[in-house]
């Protein structure tokens, strides 16, 4: 099997808050492969977004990455570099040309004071060292690529003049400006209405195939995963509790949490007028994560004397990992 472009190993990111240290990301591991889409799924607050920012090294104070590895394989092949070891300058060279990010709130993620053209070209000129003219052409080209009508005119417009869908397209164009190898889309569709959502997702899929992107799609929506992802990482309270190919996860989910998530998506097979099951209880606050398996308070199949006491280790083979005593790792 090919080497991953990007592999996250036991990533830890902490925030220092009044009530003490919060482990937002607490040992996440997963791999991202060229031309494949990794879906990172979990309820809001499970640390998805922080993971994304950790990868780009733009976690804001009071947060900081405290451990693990973020291994990026150079385009030229050869030894993978650990991004966490890079200096700020080198890291800036990664953002954009290597790894790019698409945000969930297209409105707030643009500055209202510059034209979209300006904001797209900025990255281009910085990384690709293009002339203003060339950068502009490139920007128009990008807008065209992401399906913005009349790109030549739009390029001089301001974000607030665009519709939500267009904005997200522009956001994507901006992310692709320096054709990155890895694109992280953080809830790219949450802020959009259903039809636009579909369009954006299609766009992403299409682009990924065209450019052989490695896509990390962060979402809380199993449905989106189902139609977009090749691989899945299910996160719970700062950890990947189950990872594997989408086919396996959906057909044979192992972790009780994964199952619970799956149960909560409507399916055509479901009988009409049956209530969608929901997961009992709410995610505990990271600052007071329960002892043992973090999921135990909500788990329907927990093993009392064990899950409340011990943390399940990560078991399973490459490409299919899981943290649950039901599936091995029992003492």
């Amino acid at each position, binding site marked *: 099997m090919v080497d991953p472009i990007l592999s996250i190993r036991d990533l830890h990111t902490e925030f220092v808050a009044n009530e003490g240290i*919060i482990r937002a990301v607490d040992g996440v591991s997963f791999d991202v492969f060229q031309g494949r889409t990794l879906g990172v799924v979990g309820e809001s607050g499970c640390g998805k977004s922080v993971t994304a920012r950790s990868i780009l090294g733009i976690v804001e104070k009071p947060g900081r990455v405290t451990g693990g590895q973020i291994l990026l394989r150079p385009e030229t092949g050869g030894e993978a570099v650990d991004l966490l070891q890079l200096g700020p300058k080198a890291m800036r060279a990664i953002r954009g040309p290597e790894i790019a990010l698409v945000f969930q709130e297209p409105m707030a993620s643009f500055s209202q004071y510059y034209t979209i053209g300006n904001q797209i070209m900025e990255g281009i000129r910085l990384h690709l060292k293009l002339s203003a003219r060339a950068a502009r052409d490139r920007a128009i080209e990008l807008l065209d690529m992401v399906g913005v009508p009349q790109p030549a005119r739009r390029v001089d417009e301001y974000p607030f003049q665009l519709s939500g869908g267009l904005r997200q397209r522009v956001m994507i164009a901006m992310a692709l400006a320096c054709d990155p190898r890895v694109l992280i889309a953080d809830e790219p569709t949450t802020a959009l209405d259903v039809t636009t959502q579909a369009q954006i997702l299609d766009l992403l899929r299409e682009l990924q195939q065209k450019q052989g992107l490695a896509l990390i799609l962060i979402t809380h929506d199993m449905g989106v995963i189902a139609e977009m992802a090749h691989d899945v990482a299910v996160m719970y309270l700062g950890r990947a509790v189950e990872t594997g190919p989408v086919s396996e996860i959906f057909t044979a989910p192992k972790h009780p949490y994964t199952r619970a998530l799956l149960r909560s998506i409507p399916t055509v097979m479901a009988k009409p007028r049956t209530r969608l099951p929901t997961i009992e209880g709410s995610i505990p606050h990271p600052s007071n994560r329960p002892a043992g398996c973090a999921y135990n308070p909500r788990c329907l199949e927990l093993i009392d004397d064990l899950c409340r006491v011990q943390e399940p280790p990560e078991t399973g083979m490459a490409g299919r990992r899981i943290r649950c005593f039901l599936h091995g790792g029992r003492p």
Partner: protein
Amino acid sequence: MFGMFKSRPQLSQAERFAQATQLQLTWWRFRKHRVAMVSGVIVALFYLVALSADFLATTDPHATDSRTSYIAPQPVHFFEDDGSFRPYVNGLKGVRDPKTFKIVYTPDPQRHVQVDFLAPGYPYTFLGISMTTHLFALRNPERGDGIFILGTDQLGRDIWSRLMVATRVSLTIGLVGVSISLFLGVLLGGVSAFYGGMVDTVIQRVIEVIRSMPTIPLWLGLAAALPNDWSVTQVYFSITVIISLLAWTDLARVVRGKFLALREEEFVMAAELAGASSGRIIFRHMLPSFLSHIIAAVSLALPAMIISETSLSFLGLGLRPPAISWGILLQDAQSIQSLALAPWLLSAAVPVILVILAFNFLGDGLRDAADPYG
């Protein structure tokens, strides 16, 4: 993203916050603001001084005597030569140097004038009761004796005592002034925001006009209009009114801004739907919810008031002697000879700076507390 980590801790105390009023919330956040807390205490102390000015004064702040003209600050000795704790000041001999024309004061080591605690001094009235007790006083002083810890001015008046009285005058001016402009500000700002439309436009225009006029000329104009033969108290109050008449606009803007923001809030809608009278909505529902902002705004407005009074008096258009205010004390310090021969006259600047600092920090703390991201 890390907004979520910000919001979580509140979740954990959700119940408390649920019941807490805006004011309590502010108070909780405010307590974290250490500088502001200290400032608050300082302000409180200042008003305590204002209350007991005469009691703290050691000598009649009006009494002049050429024999004590321009005395530099004098130390109070705490221990007698025999080492016993009996605070005293030395008697002073002043001689004018015939060449430099400066008066040279030399302490007379023989003459120890006892300093008594809670002892009788010049008579004054406190809350209508005439008293003679002062915090400190000299035991049977001779002419020219005094506790001059801050020195004396040209007319030989004790700076410390004058400072005490001045504090009372200046601080109360600030307070009265701010309450007037507060009333105007809340009323007009509230009305302006609540009714909007024509009313709003008109009031906003008025505010713009007032704000777009340099204030000093206005003050000067109004102050210059005061009849020359008015008594000190009349002038005192008119000055206060004048200052506040121009200071309300900022408050009005704050109120209006917060008001508009709140209009949209559900509970106001609810109240409106429930058919509550607009007056009731304003004062029962909305006012309390931004009381904290008002408090902040006020504590930021006060120093402006105080500086205004000082400036006016400095220009000779505010209070006039024999009234004593910080402005007037500073006016005394403004001559070259004061700066060169009696720099201690500038000590009047210290309380001004201190109290204004305190008010600003206090106000800042309150504002931050009122809305952390405001």
